[in-house]
């Protein structure tokens, strides 16, 4: 399979000024690439900067430093009107909170058709309606729902409306910002399967941000692990779950509960101590320890990880 880079995130930094002295480094020097048609999972604890990365990529924040290249175009900083229109049409976002992500004063039809209206996709009112009904059916709702208001829907249904709104402009990349974490488990699987179906049908690329590790494993092709604004490990999904190297990743994986009382009984949680790294002189960076498996480490750790890799099984 030929890999086309759809999105290239190149050393982006997103700092927020608290006051004159203090700044928060929400995202600190992060680079990765997302290939056409894949699902790229981004995991990490609360406050690790996953959501901030998503929002920085889609230009909700002005990034402090670095570049984002989308489909061959640089989309950071001041860009032309055409490029902005290109980004807003081809990159969309699905939000976390199904209660807050729909305007309570707009009907479902108007919510979904917002992209059509802004980019003037439909020429007539009938065409607009037709597009809305089509996408509604695609996400598992019916056109009878179009005239209703968000408060009349359940959480899962609202999330479908949010997905429909994101897909109406036919985007290439959809950033899913914890789209399932506010839903209950049975609805979670519905929505995730819907996302998978739509991906197969429309050839979408996802940046899937989540903290539910088992769900990320299920949907992602490659997974990046974030900690305190930095990427610590990046590997194909199965590889990461089986052959995790970074102590933070191991700690995260050790926290996944297993639906089996016996293994649950013997499961040991590893704590992660950021202080265990000695980065005083030997500065860390992202290194490829084996094909497609990257890890954030310094020279000394790199050697240790290499020894560890030798003991691991291939996936």
């Amino acid at each position: 399979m030929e890999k086309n880079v759809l999105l290239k995130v190149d050393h982006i930094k997103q700092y927020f000024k608290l006051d004159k002295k203090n700044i928060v480094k929400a995202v600190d020097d992060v680079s990765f690439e997302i290939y056409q048609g894949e699902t790229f999972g981004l995991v990490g604890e609360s406050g690790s900067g996953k959501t901030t990365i998503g929002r920085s990529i889609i230009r909700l924040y002005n990034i402090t430093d670095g570049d984002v290249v989308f489909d061959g175009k640089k989309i950071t900083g001041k860009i032309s009107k055409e490029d902005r229109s290109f980004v807003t049409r081809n990159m969309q976002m699905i939000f976390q909170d199904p209660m807050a992500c729909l305007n309570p004063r707009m009907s479902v039809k108007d919510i979904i058709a917002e992209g059509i209206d802004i980019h003037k996709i439909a020429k007539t009112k009938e065409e607009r309606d037709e597009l809305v009904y089509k996408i509604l059916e695609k996400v598992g709702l019916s056109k009878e729902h179009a005239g209703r208001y968000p408060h009349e829907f359940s959480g899962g249904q609202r999330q479908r409306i949010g997905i429909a709104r994101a897909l109406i402009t036919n985007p290439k990349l959809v950033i899913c910002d914890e789209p399932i974490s506010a839903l209950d488990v049975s609805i979670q699987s519905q929505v995730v399967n819907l996302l998978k179906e739509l991906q197969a049908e429309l050839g979408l690329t996802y940046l899937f941000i989540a903290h539910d590790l088992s769900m990320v494993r299920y949907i992602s092709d490659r997974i990046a692990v974030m900690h305190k604004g930095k990427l610590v490990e990046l590997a194909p999904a199965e590889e990461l779950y089986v052959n995790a190297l970074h102590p933070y990743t191991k700690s995260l994986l050790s926290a996944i509960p297993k639906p089996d009382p016996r293994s649950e009984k013997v499961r040991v949680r590893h704590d992660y101590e950021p202080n265990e790294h000695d980065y005083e002189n030997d500065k860390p960076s992202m290194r490829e320890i084996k094909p497609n498996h990257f890890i954030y480490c310094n020279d000394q750790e790199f050697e240790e990880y290499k020894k560890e890799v030798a003991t691991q099984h291939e996936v």
Partner: protein
Amino acid sequence: MSWFKKNKNDIVETNVIEEVEVKKEDFVFEKASVVEAEGLMKKPLTFWKDAFLRLLQNKFAVGSVIVILLMVTMAIVAPMTSKYDLNKAVSKNQTLVTQLPPRIPFVENLGIFDGTLIKETTEARLATDYQPDEYKIIDRYTRDGVDYVKVKEYTYKIKGLENEYFYFGTDQIGRDIWTRLWYGARISLLIGFYAALIDVLIGVVYGGIAGFYGGSRLDDIMMRITEILYGIPSIVILFILFMFLEPGIVPIAIAIALTGWIGVARMVRAQFLRLRDQEFVLAARTLGASPFRLIMKHLIPNVVAQIVVMASFSIPNAIFYEAFLAFIGIGMNVKTPSLGTMIDNALGTTYGAMTYVYQLIIPCVVLSILMLSINLLANGLRDSLDPRMRGN
């Protein structure tokens, strides 16, 4: 199965749990496309329809609407249909008919609004003051050695106006109070309406800009300006203003709105700040919505309810403030009376003597009813537009 039991002995048991083999076939794929086939029987309620239905359930609010509509109708119709002029004193046989008591047909038979005045005179002057059929003695008493009589005089008969009806009487220079009262109500309502309109217009634009660019230098400067304005006593501004302006409906409304918009602006700013970072606004931004579209489609519609409530509360405030201004002498001029100026005028004639107290009571009662009903309506609007804000 007892593996979850806390007892130590039981934990030992867990080692002998049967092997349960989980096969892939045991699992069923959760269908992604499940359309809940719910009955779509009734049409969806829009926000405003829903609020309207809730308002209808509020008896006080409905009553207030009726009273307000009645008042507005009277304010429009009564001065036009009245046979007496607004500013011309009524005269009969070349004399002005001043200080006539209220007299309303049919109601006069009940003993109220019957065109009589209670007056006090002395026993000695009774015969010279009145013809024998012009009065009825209510009370006799002696004070400081003088014999006093309290009489009910038939004023209309004395003035030779048995066929005339001044519903609310006439004032000290003989103008019909009924005509002036409803004209005054019209002026007061207009002032209230204009003041609320100016409040909302300035407040929404100002607060909207500050809120949309919230946290920026612009927002900072704009909010400091409102604080400075808020700190200046508005009465002082008004006195300065009326040194240059002739008091009229619009200048007074402007004067009242001078500081009134600040409350609206602060509310709108706060709401914009709250809404600005909500996900539906972010979603619109990722779709490429312009700031204009964001404000008009996403922010304003979510604040309209609060704006309506604030505006409806600011109407009675403005009316009352105008009455207060009239009372301290910088209200409307005498030729275009408002309720406030009427009360101010009546107080002059009522001082000390209760004889002509009707001139004071009538505009006061109308003012109170008007303010009460607008306040009740505003209350009802708040409850129906924002159910979470429901008062007790």
